[in-house]
Structure formats: structure tokens, C-alpha cells
């Protein structure tokens, strides 16, 4: 038997090259510093920051998280130091890691804030890509940007005008047709899609008769939502051309593979970072081993490669 060649894990998101397709999801990895003591951050394919806004945000009242069957709810409310302090206090550490840093941004009031933030970040070489969080369920808005195709098109188009960096649109699963939104994002010039943000959810303490979250409703994440995410990735994959960053309940190599096979070019580990912070690194090494064993040279031999039926 011939010695198998080392597999190539690198992928492309628009103009951005990643040495491997495994990243950590916004809001679940802080600003990386919190994890430095016990894992080699340099191995990550990329890192997405907690979502940043123009002004500092206090976030929502406690409790902000609760456990649900095979999942969790959160209502952090985009607590963040604001872009200025982010650049001063958080970015320097990230720069030193020498891995692609994807900065997630959101608008509190006006969509212009996206443009403002994108303009500032566009200047910075240490920022590899910008992720537009148009899907955070924890802003007390009646409707999210990514719950409306026109708004999605509008906002992304506006940002597209002010930056040449890789632009990622993060979409909400709380829609009637994820494909409509995905198409709007693609038409607006997004380089990639991040699927999915959390599902709207709520949980009640029946003994106290109070919501378990201080702000009543929040976002559901974890293994519980994986089937929902897989379906959306698969449906979108069949209708669009830009790459998909798949996420939603990834906890190990098999669940990561599920996302690749469903059509993801890259994957993102979220809630699992809380349970086993090394999940992303284990997926990277597991993926390399898997590709070697099955003699798979490139990830595009896995992405979207779902067999028609069992035989």
C-alpha cells in the first residue's frame, strides 16, 4: 500500500486563506485570552471575537444563561467594551497569535453603525475578516435585520462599499425561508455566510414561576439545535455559491463532519468551548487523521458530498 499523502486542510473564504477550516464562534470564546492557559490557540483556523458595537454595552440583567435539554439558553445582550477599547485592550493580544482574526460587529440602533465599524476595521491589517452579526436575538428589537431579505441586502451592500476585507454575514435561523435571506446576502456581496445563530427560546422555573433568564427570552444553542442547523446549511448550500461556515451544536469530529457533508466549507465551535475548551483543536487533529485514513486530499471532497441514498 502506498503511503498516503498528508491531507490539505486549508480553505478559502473569499480572499481569506485559512490553514484549516475550524474556528471558534463569536461570543463563545471571549477574546481568546480566557483560554490561553490551557490550549495552543495558534492551531485554530481562525478566531471570531465576541460581537463589538460602537459604544460599550452593559448587556442584559442576570441570569444570562440556563441549561436546557442538550442545549443552553443565553441572553448576554452583546456586552462588550465598544470598538475603541476593543482595539486598545483586546486586539493586541489577538494580533500576537498570528492567526486570522475575524471581528464580529453589530449595530445597536442605526444600520449606519455597521458601516462606521467596518470603516474602522478596514484600516487594520490584523483584522482578517468582518462578521456582520445581523442575527443577535438579544437586542430588544421586534425584528432582526436578517429576518428580512431587503434589510439584509441593504445593510450588507452598504458595508460592502466601505471594505475590501472578507465579509461574513451571520444569519438567524428564526425565519420562514433561510434561503431567501442567504440569497439576499450573496447578492449584496457577502464573501461567506455563517449559519446559524441561536434559535429563539425561553425557559421557566416552574417552582418560582419566573423565567430562567433575567431578560425572559434568549438564544438556544448546543447539540439540541444541530438538526435545525444541518438542514439550513444543506438547503442554503444547494442554492448559493459563496462558502458556508457551519455551526450549531458541534461537539466533536462526527458532528463537525456532519456540517461539512451538509455543505460547510468551514465550521465553528460555540457552546462546546464551555464544555471542553479543546473541542476545536481535537476536531482539527481528528479531521486530519480522518482525511488521511480515508485518503481524502482536500476538504472539497467532503463539503456537500452527500450520497443520494443508501445502497
Amino acid at each position, binding site marked *: 500500500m502506498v503511503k498516503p499523502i498528508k491531507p490539505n486542510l486549508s480553505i478559502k473564504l473569499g480572499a481569506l486563506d485559512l490553514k484549516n477550516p475550524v474556528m471558534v464562534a463569536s*461570543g*463563545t*470564546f*471571549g477574546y481568546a485570552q*480566557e*483560554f490561553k*492557559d*490551557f*490550549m495552543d490557540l495558534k492551531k485554530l483556523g481562525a478566531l471570531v471575537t*465576541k460581537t463589538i458595537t460602537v459604544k460599550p454595552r*452593559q*448587556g442584559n*440583567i*442576570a*441570569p*444570562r*444563561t*440556563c*441549561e436546557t*435539554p*442538550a*442545549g*443552553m439558553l*443565553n441572553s*448576554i445582550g452583546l*456586552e462588550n467594551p465598544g470598538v475603541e477599547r476593543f482595539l486598545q485592550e483586546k486586539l493586541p493580544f489577538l494580533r500576537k497569535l498570528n492567526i486570522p482574526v475575524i471581528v464580529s460587529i453589530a449595530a445597536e440602533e442605526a444600520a449606519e453603525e455597521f458601516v462606521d465599524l467596518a470603516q474602522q476595521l478596514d484600516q487594520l491589517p490584523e483584522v482578517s475578516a468582518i462578521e456582520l452579526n445581523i442575527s443577535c436575538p438579544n437586542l430588544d428589537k421586534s425584528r432582526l435585520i436578517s429576518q428580512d431579505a431587503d434589510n439584509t441586502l441593504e445593510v450588507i451592500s452598504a458595508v460592502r462599499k466601505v471594505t475590501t476585507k472578507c465579509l461574513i454575514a451571520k444569519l438567524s435561523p428564526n425565519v420562514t425561508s433561510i434561503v431567501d435571506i442567504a440569497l439576499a446576502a450573496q447578492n449584496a456581496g457577502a464573501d461567506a455566510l455563517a449559519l446559524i445563530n441561536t434559535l429563539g427560546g425561553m425557559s421557566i422555573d416552574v417552582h418560582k414561576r419566573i423565567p430562567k433568564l433575567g431578560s425572559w427570552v434568549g438564544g438556544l444553542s*448546543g*447539540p439540541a439545535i444541530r438538526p435545525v442547523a444541518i438542514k439550513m446549511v444543506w438547503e442554503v448550500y444547494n442554492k448559493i455559491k459563496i462558502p458556508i461556515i457551519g455551526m450549531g451544536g458541534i*461537539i466533536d469530529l462526527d458532528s463537525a463532519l456532519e456540517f461539512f457533508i451538509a455543505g460547510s466549507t468551514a465550521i465553528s465551535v460555540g*457552546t462546546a*468551548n*464551555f*464544555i*471542553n*475548551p*479543546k473541542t476545536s483543536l481535537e476536531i482539527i487533529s481528528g479531521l486530519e487523521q480522518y482525511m488521511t485514513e480515508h485518503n481524502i486530499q482536500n476538504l472539497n471532497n467532503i463539503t456537500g458530498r452527500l450520497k443520494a441514498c443508501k445502497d
Partner: protein
Amino acid sequence: MSIGQLQAKIISNQKLAGHYGHLEFDSALIAQQATPGQFINIRVSDAVEPLLRRPLSIHNVQGSKVKIIYKIIGQGTQMLSAKQPGEFLDIIGPLGNGFAYQNLVQSKKAKSVLIAGGMGVAPLVFLAEKLKSSQPLVLIGAKTKNEILCLQEFKRLNCKLALATEDGSLGFKGRVTDLLKTILEKTYPEVIFSCGPQAMLKAVASLALKNGIDTQLSLEEHMACGLGACLGCVVLTKNGYKTVCKDGPVFAGGELIW
């Protein structure tokens, strides 16, 4: 000081009276670094139920041995109580900022009071050990007699003890904070260290404030990451929201906004 994620071998795991348990595991990394008031985050199941880790205070350390005591209240602590010696536990720690007590270590006269409510004794034994030269006064309160824990351990550390039970089955009849009130009429400690239910901590804080005494309070909040990454476990302070897992779990009472 550095946080570790490790597979720690369980040395012993005994059921105590009632719904309590007492577990010892081996971890030099944690034992050597841990300070009173810090905690660890334990993965009780490698399946997805329960999903999140369970935070537990470091009860005491001895050589490379780390002790925790727990109350069985739900699925996670239930599973923890079923672990066998020899099994390995996936633990992250030591976590958080413990009690600020160093300035008292050398002192020979009692300058501190430790107040525990129910399971709140957990981190205070470790603290009492550090302070034993100054023979701190330890107040323990609970609903009833058999919820008063760790008596022997505090005695071994020859702390002065005062107990309170709401049903009067042991010691002072009433709230431990009422007991504290009477005590503060006679003694005047520099610092009060406390751990227990939020309502109790709040009462302790306001009592101390009235008497111009500093407090070091160990709080609890629902946690996801335990590392300061998710911003899930916040409490409101005069400097905005802070994380119980990283900025705390111990806060100066004066800092908190109740």
C-alpha cells in the same frame, strides 16, 4: 498562576449524612495554586446531558489532594455522587479570585469573622485553615441541625464557633445574621468573610456597612464557561457588570449593587 484542564483521579467519594457528599481527587496543579474562595468546574458526564460543567468550591487541599463537598440537588450533583474512586474527573481550575486575607495571616489576635450559610461552609474551611493562627470566629447558620456542616473540621482548626439554626435545633434560634448582630455588639472584627445564599450575604453586607466593617463575600451565579469568556455569570457592581467566575466569586461587599 495558570488554569489547567485536567483528568484528575478520584481518591475518595463518600456520602455524608443527608444529601451531601465529600470528594477528594488528586491534582498537584490545583492543590499547589489554589487559594481559599477559588473553585473548579467539573464535567460530570461525557454525554450531552447534563451539558454544562458544574462549579464547586475548593473545600480544602492537602499535599496534591483537593477536597470538595457538595449537596445533591439535581442531575449533575447526582451524577457526581455516583463517581467511583479510581475514575477520572475532567476538571478545569483553579478558577476565579478568592478571599483577600493575606494581611491577616500573620496576625495573632482574632480580627476576622467567617459566616457560612448552609453549603457556604464549603470554601470557608480552606480559609479558616489559612487564618488559624488568628483563631477566627466562625458563624454557621442553617435551617436545622443536620444542615450544619463541617463542625469537626472547624474545631480541628481550633476556630471559635457560634451556631444558629432557624428551628433552634442547635445553637442560637434564628438567622445566623441575627446572631451576627448580637455578636457585633461585643466584638469589632476588621473583616467579615462570608459565603451562602444571596439573601444572607445581602444581610451580612448591610450589617457590616452599618458597623463600618469590610466584607469579602463569595457569590454564586449560573455559569456556562467558568472562564470569563461567555459573560454569562454577571453581578452588578459599582463598576458595572462583573463576572462571578473570573472577577469573583469573591467580591468586597461595598462593591456590589444588590
